[in-house]
């Protein structure tokens, strides 16, 4: 499976040379500006504001990076026909998809970790205490973008970047509103209820990864709850990648 890592490495190199990682500097600017503005207008809760806005900024940047990089990760190669040379090599299509996903994951992890370290440095600068809660918040963000990245790869294996981006954003929004959505459809007609419940169970409940409240107020969750969320996230990633492999394996490249 050495070739899987080679594909992942190529994906990472291409992103690096496309200056994708410049987004980290933009993030740094946002966090510093935020902290300057909010510390001026906030009287007592500087640390909470820093954590809250910092994690929210990491979430938005990581999400944007995942969607914009992920949605074209396979179909751009199909459109440009650079995939012809690669798939004719003695590699499996499963290995290709896995390599592309691991490359995307590496891009997301490197940028998110750099942003998180930046946030910790700013917090240290403001002499804010760093508790375990902030790591929990970051863990939730990483899991969420891992799931969305897998969905982006799945979409990219069968449709255009535009449609893929639309689906990813729709999954993100519905994934955060799924509990409210389920509550609403349960009061609706039987047909809507059935459709709504199917959607609820098919789409990921992204609120499970939202630990920003715990991060802001330095609260912890049980190890069991953490493990459940981790297993849920990884299972969803595996299911999305399996779907991508099934679709991609049957594709003809005209």
């Amino acid at each position: 499976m050495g070739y899987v890592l080679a594909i992942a490495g190529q994906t990472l190199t291409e992103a690096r040379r496309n200056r994708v990682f410049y987004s980290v500097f933009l993030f740094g600017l946002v966090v510093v500006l935020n902290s300057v503005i909010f510390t001026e207008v906030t009287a007592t809760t500087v640390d909470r504001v820093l954590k809250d806005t910092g994690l929210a900024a990491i979430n938005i940047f990581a999400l944007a990076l995942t969607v914009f990089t992920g949605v074209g990760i396979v179909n751009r190669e199909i459109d440009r026909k650079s995939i012809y040379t690669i798939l004719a090599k003695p590699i499996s299509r499963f290995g290709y998809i896995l390599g592309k996903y691991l490359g995307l994951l590496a891009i997301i992890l490197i940028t998110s970790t750099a942003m998180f370290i930046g946030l910790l440095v700013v917090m240290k600068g403001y002499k804010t205490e760093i508790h375990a809660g902030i790591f929990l918040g970051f863990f939730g963000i990483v899991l969420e973008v891992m799931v969305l990245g897998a969905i982006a790869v799945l979409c990219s294996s069968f449709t255009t970047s535009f449609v893929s981006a639309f689906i990813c954003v729709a999954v993100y929004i519905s994934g955060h509103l799924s509990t409210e959505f389920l509550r609403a459809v349960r009061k609706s007609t039987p047909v809507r209820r059935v459709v709504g419940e199917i959607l609820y169970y098919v789409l990921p409940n992204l609120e499970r990864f939202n630990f920003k409240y715990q991060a802001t107020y330095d609260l912890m969750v049980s190890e069991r709850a953490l493990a459940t969320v981790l297993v849920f996230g990884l299972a969803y990633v595996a299911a999305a990648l399996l779907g991508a492999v099934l679709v991609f394996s049957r594709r003809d490249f005209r």
Partner: protein
Amino acid sequence: MSDLAIELVNLEKQFTINLGVRRRRALDQLSLSVQRGEIYGFLGPNGAGKTTSIKVLASLLRQDAGEARVFGGDPLLETTRRRLGFLPESPVFYDHLTGREFLRLCGKLCGMDRGSIKRRSGELLERVGLGHAADLQVRRYSKGMNQRLGIAQALLHDPELVILDEPMSGLDPMGRADIRDLIVELRKAGKTIFFSTHIIPDVEVICDRIGLVNHGRMVAEGSVHALLDAARSKTTEVLVAGLPASLALPEGQEAAAASGQRLFLVDSEDQLTQLLHRAMAEQAKIVSVTPRRESLEDLVVRMLDQDRRERAA
């Protein structure tokens, strides 16, 4: 062990067009075979089914019916593809990688070790004339340089079979000559080469056998010499000087006359003998007697035209 490097048997492929409303037949019971160690030229007009057949062999397309085998194995299997090198038509690579980095990636995909990748990449970049541009990003390459890099990546893992889709495309005459020499060199090294092209004179010079495809069907297949011999015209051209313009020679059909010389075409040896005797009797000078030979290009055009007429009928 099969003696065949490639075997296509009754291959069929249809594509949907116009949003799936219509279907277009790209391959229609196409069969061909390529022996180990030969150079096989795959000819045909645009849209004849050459690239579709090649993509089936490279596992980029799956046939609807029929069989495709490479060294007796299914090209969909990785173990089979390990034995072939493939150059797609108008190849495109990763813009942000250098030529050397791209070859390194290809080597890893083929399971080569680091030392072999480094050695082969260096050799091949020099061999295809990209030594000076090895560390330049691919986006700065010209079309011809891309083509050369494509050939290098196809040969990197030293495959037994090399499949090249339009390898001469985008190359200047020097580049074409280089690739021709490389193909001949590969055959000397015991490789099998299967390539599609529109440049028929190249085929005539280097190919052992050719296949002519049209509308997804094989129109003719065989050795270049056998096809040309079979199609050799019995017509002979006789150029005569000093023959009065008013004198008719019923033995031959007059094709042209200029500068006191007259050109006659004869269709049999008897006619030729009679015409020569008559000309000498008239004290004329026989300038030349040339059997009219059809070039491979003429032959291909004639066969395609015949195929078109047969289809129309």
